[in-house]
């Protein structure tokens, strides 16, 4: 394990439908924004390579469907995530209220080893719009009660803070990653008992 390969992080984006999950991802990865709205069915995948503390990190970003009827990829989908981005729309208070259930849902499905310290990031999106419905303080407060989740206010449309938010996910996920090593200090030696190796099943009856 001397030559460490690049690090790969699986990051999942969750949130109600229409809050801009796909737009955030497209802005982040492809620097593109479209006003056209298309529902995500199942999931989209994108990857982006970033530098975190002088290490090259590949982020495998899993954009999910917000709409319930397309959330059909199953529990295995969340398995083994390194980080999770929770997104709400700052103009729609109900999307903010959903964060609780998204977070719970994620923790149940992904069942990470250390749920208290799992690297979440909360994004309040669409700050470019006028009709603000959720104040920054309120969002900050919620994040604080959930173990000081980092909070970012972004606009996928105008590319505000998007980069920073994802960078924070990568950085926090990396912090957890470093203490993981293969669990084989000394593998179990084989004991010869004489019966753990079955004699051959002779196919030939003759």
């Amino acid at each position: 394990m001397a030559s460490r390969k690049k690090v790969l992080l699986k990051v999942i984006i969750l949130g109600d439908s229409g809050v801009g999950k796909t737009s955030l991802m497209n802005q982040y990865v492809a620097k593109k924004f479209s006003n056209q709205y298309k529902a995500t069915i199942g999931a989209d995948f994108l990857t982006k390579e970033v530098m975190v503390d002088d290490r090259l990190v590949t982020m495998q970003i899993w954009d999910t469907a917000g709409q319930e009827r397309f959330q059909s990829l199953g529990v295995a989908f969340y398995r083994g995530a390194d980080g999770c981005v929770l997104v709400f729309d700052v103009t729609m208070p109900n999307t903010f209220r959903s964060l609780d259930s998204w977070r719970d849902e994620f923790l149940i499905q992904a069942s990470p080893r250390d749920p208290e310290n799992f690297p979440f990031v909360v994004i309040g999106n669409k700050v470019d719009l006028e009709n603000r419905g959720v104040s920054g303080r309120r969002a900050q407060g919620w994040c604080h009660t959930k173990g000081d989740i980092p909070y970012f206010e972004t606009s996928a449309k105008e590319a505000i803070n998007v980069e920073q938010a994802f960078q924070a996910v990568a950085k926090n996920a990396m912090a957890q990653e470093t203490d993981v090593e293969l669990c084989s200090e000394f593998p179990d030696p084989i004991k010869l008992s004489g019966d753990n190796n079955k004699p051959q099943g002779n196919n030939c009856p003759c």
Partner: protein
Amino acid sequence: MATDHREAEQPVNTSDSDFQEDVEFVETNCVPGKCNSAVFDTTDELDDLTLNLANGVIQNHRGTITSLIRKRAKRSNTLKDEEADQDLANSIASEEANSIEQSELSSELSEDENVKNGLEDLSLQDTESVPEESPSVTLIPSSSETDYVNSLEWKQQKKHIFILSESGKPIYSRHGSEDKLVTVMGVMQALVSFVQDDKDNLRSIVAGDHTFVFMNRDHLTFVGVTRGRESTQQMLLQLTYMYNQVISVLTHSTLVRTFKQHRNFDLRRPLSGAEKFFDNLLNLMDVEPGLLLTSVRCLPLDSSVRDIVSQTIVQHAKVKDLVFALIIAQNQLVALVRMKRYYLHPMDLHLIINLINASESFKAAESWTPICLPKFDATGFLQAYVSYLDEECQSCLLLLSVDIEAFYTLSECRAKIKERLDRYNALTAIGNSLQRHSYSVQQCSIGDLRHFLYKARSTAQYTSPELGPPYNTPEQQDRLFGLYHFLHDKVHSVSRPLKLLYHVGKYETLLGWVTQGFELYAVFGPLVTKNVAIHAVNKLLRWIKREEDRLFILSSVTF
């Protein structure tokens, strides 16, 4: 005996319908390569696979995941919400309905129908609709990865093999760097996960001339994609070899423990440096019939010479905790000595052969390397002492022990073994046999027989002649191997296993024949009749019987 050819297929031309009467089919006492004392553990992996497949439902999910998900979406809608279902149906009917700009209707919605749909969407406070054209698992172009996956070079590979973790993290890809395939691997994981959600397992997908085969084992997903002649079953066998190779490097216990503790673990790290073993194993599978037949090829050798070799090992390597001692020359087994009560499975032996074959470093010095043999014991490592016995690095000695401290003891054994093999000119004999390249099919003096594979089932060994014309080019060899895959698949078909298959192809006639004692796959010229083919294989069996002392290891030697 007449029942034996009841199953024979007559795909193209079989005019000689009277062959049942006049062909003395097989002399039952003639099973070349048969032996009563076990040389190998001969549980057949293919039988296991067959059992697995027969017990479960074989699911060929034809079609795209889009339609699957849409179907699912529809279904859940029907249960939940009639109105939404209507909306879904409308949306599917109209492609344009998805162009809604936030809560405003976009200017593109000019048709009344679309506006109506759009309004219905809004009235449901539900601005999402099902776009007909956009696939559910979208690969958004623009990244370099997408370019790479779409490159002709990558797409035109005949076979792809991928290994990913259950969280969708890439571990290995045969072609291209797995680093560039992060998205594709995510898609594969999504497919697997989607089907698992229904308490089901994704086994294979047929798309055009490609077959995708999936295998989940111990937190890992193995995916094989082929447009060759391998069947789903045969691909599963190849994926099983890949799984065994992973275990061989890590052990089963470590693999399971690691993923239990860290589901997001990046297995590339502990496997770094092992890529060459995966690559080499896959290359072997494309040219070495032994893996398909789960059997081993022995180096043709006079039985007296082979006796000297094995007796030398018995005498000079009689060391505590030494489980297996073997000599391998150019992927062929020269001799095997085992501890009483322990057997080496051919699948494990292929991993050993792969270890030697893939690594040049053993040629430089004596080596001491841990290796896990999954069929023998998947929970721990054996320690392998590896050293070539001759200057040309042809004959490789392997001593497998459970004693981690045994290196110097085994090194002494090696010196004694080499000294005695030199004295008896055994190494020269091995070298000569290697130079003669096995034997040509002409030596069997059977007209029109071009090539064959013969597997003695009780000993899990096989023999076949060298590849002569017309199979002397890589393309033709590849084609021949495809024919064997075809033949092997047909006789081992899950739904309809055959004892005998006579198949007239475009360029050659094939005969596959499976009995309790052996499997025979023979390739003839195109104009051979069934009668002639049957006579020929009977003659061939007699020839192999005469040569069996040279071609097979018939008696098992133990410490």
